[in-house]
């Protein structure tokens, strides 16, 4: 029913175009009617998309979730999308091909990836840098690192400011387990692109995998400067300082600031218990004033934690209470 309406709308648009040609190209009324028809046919097209119920899931996966469930996307492809003629989606289908391609690579379904890539290459030939990058990613997935690197180098020769290709070259180093080189190249990249959160986050992770807490903390600080309203940045910074072991005070400060930004952050509450406990133990021989503050805050954090568990998952409360006791001074 919807497809028919859409077809009629598009037919009507063509008729209006013909009328414009024949009668008066500048007729305001014809322009208005044309505009209205286009508006409706577009809306109907979009609704057609959403009406394919599974596609709503797909859109959600691609646009909303930060954590993409690649196997769900591949399932959606094999169960639904590959069976259908995608031409009714218009230009949206290239985005779908791209997303399914990437998800298929994650799930090692090279044949699906190849199929999507072929469709993209047929449409965009070899002039599209974006499709060429995808082609290089395909080579990476079949362990053909040399070809991938060559493709990236060629792309950079044409345009050395291409951030995405630079980052893919760094990922290549990570895949080959050349972590030191990856760190070094990522540092060079960040000298130019200082506001790239994703890159700072990746560099932080690379340093953490090398257990270089000091440098990881520096990256976490950059993330905090770029976006101080993200409670996860505060909490990550605090955790790094705690893991480093010599500045529990700073860790504690940032666990508190994470909690201030997001009072539901349970990691921050646990972090307060841990840091305050450690600080109280360190200061046990010295003044009682500071210790009193730490002890009160440990008590407060524990009560908050227990309250949250009581409300959300009372079944687990005995375990949590026992665990908190074991962490006590």
């Amino acid at each position: 029913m919807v497809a028919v309406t859409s077809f009629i709308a598009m037919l009507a648009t063509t008729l209006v175009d013909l009328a414009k040609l024949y009668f008066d190209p500048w007729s305001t009324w014809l322009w208005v009617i044309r505009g209205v028809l286009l508006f409706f046919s577009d809306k109907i097209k979009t609704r057609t998309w959403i009406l394919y119920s599974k596609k709503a899931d797909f859109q959600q996966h691609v646009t909303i979730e930060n954590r993409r469930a690649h196997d769900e996307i591949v399932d959606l492809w094999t169960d639904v999308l590959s069976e259908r003629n995608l031409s009714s989606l218009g230009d949206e289908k290239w985005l779908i091909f791209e997303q399914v391609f990437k998800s298929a690579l994650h799930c090692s379904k090279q044949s699906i990836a190849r199929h999507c890539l072929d469709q993209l290459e047929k449409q965009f030939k070899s002039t599209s840098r974006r499709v060429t990058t995808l082609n290089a990613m395909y080579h990476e997935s079949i362990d053909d690192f040399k070809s991938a690197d060559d493709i990236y180098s060629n792309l950079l020769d044409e345009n050395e400011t291409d951030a995405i290709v630079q980052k893919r070259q760094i990922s290549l180093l990570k895949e080959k387990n050349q972590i030191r080189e990856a760190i070094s190249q990522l540092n060079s990249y960040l000298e130019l692109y200082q506001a790239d959160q994703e890159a700072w986050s990746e560099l932080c992770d690379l340093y953490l995998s090398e257990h270089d807490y000091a440098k990881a903390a520096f990256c976490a600080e950059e993330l905090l400067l770029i976006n101080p309203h993200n409670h996860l940045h505060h909490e990550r910074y605090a955790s790094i300082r705690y893991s480093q072991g010599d500045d529990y005070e700073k860790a504690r400060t940032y666990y508190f600031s994470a909690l201030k930004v997001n009072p539901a952050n349970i990691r921050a509450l646990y972090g307060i218990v841990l840091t305050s406990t450690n600080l109280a133990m360190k200061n046990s021989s010295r003044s009682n004033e500071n210790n009193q503050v730490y002890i009160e805050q440990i008590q407060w954090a524990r009560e908050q934690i227990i309250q949250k568990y009581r409300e959300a998952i009372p079944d687990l409360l005995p375990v949590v209470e026992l665990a908190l006791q074991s962490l006590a001074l």
Partner: protein
Amino acid sequence: MSDINTLAFTKMFLHLAKYPELAVNGILLSEKTSSASDEADSSSYLHFVDCIPLFHGILSLSPMLEIALSQIDAYCSLKKLTIAGYYHANENYSDPNPNFTTLKIMEKIKENNPNAVLFMIDNSLVDLTENDRFYNVFTLSDRTWKNVTDSHIVNDESRLSAMQLVNRKQHRQLIDFDNHLDSISNDWRNPHIRNELNAASF
């Protein structure tokens, strides 16, 4: 010498399936024997009966590890179990070797149980239609790893259950400690997985 039951094996496998592109780790629990000693005993037999998936992504941050271990310890004391194993999967597909993080965490676990062993995931073995297990077992002494996979027994039911549950997409329902910290109503004991296995028993 050690063996592993279907529940522990399956939960470990589901954790890998849920986060194929990330490093993951977790704890394996064994029954607490009455003769548990404080010294390393190479002749002790470990019977692994449960698995608690811990984290995915970054494994080298210590605060949440301490929280997790304290809760698992508490859980063990209530259930007469003990932390006897630790599994670790590297982010890099072709790297089946224990690294510095693995070492640090194993040393911490061995403080409480000197007989604890490492299950090091080997991604090349993940195809359970061809292999009976997807990991190698190691002991640690004086910072040296010793491969003791030959003395570890896996039964066929575990292998088949693990594959079956992944086919039924149960890995999406698995909760690790990171998921629990994101939203505490997620239960890291995964009682629903146990139910799934009971329903699937053949």
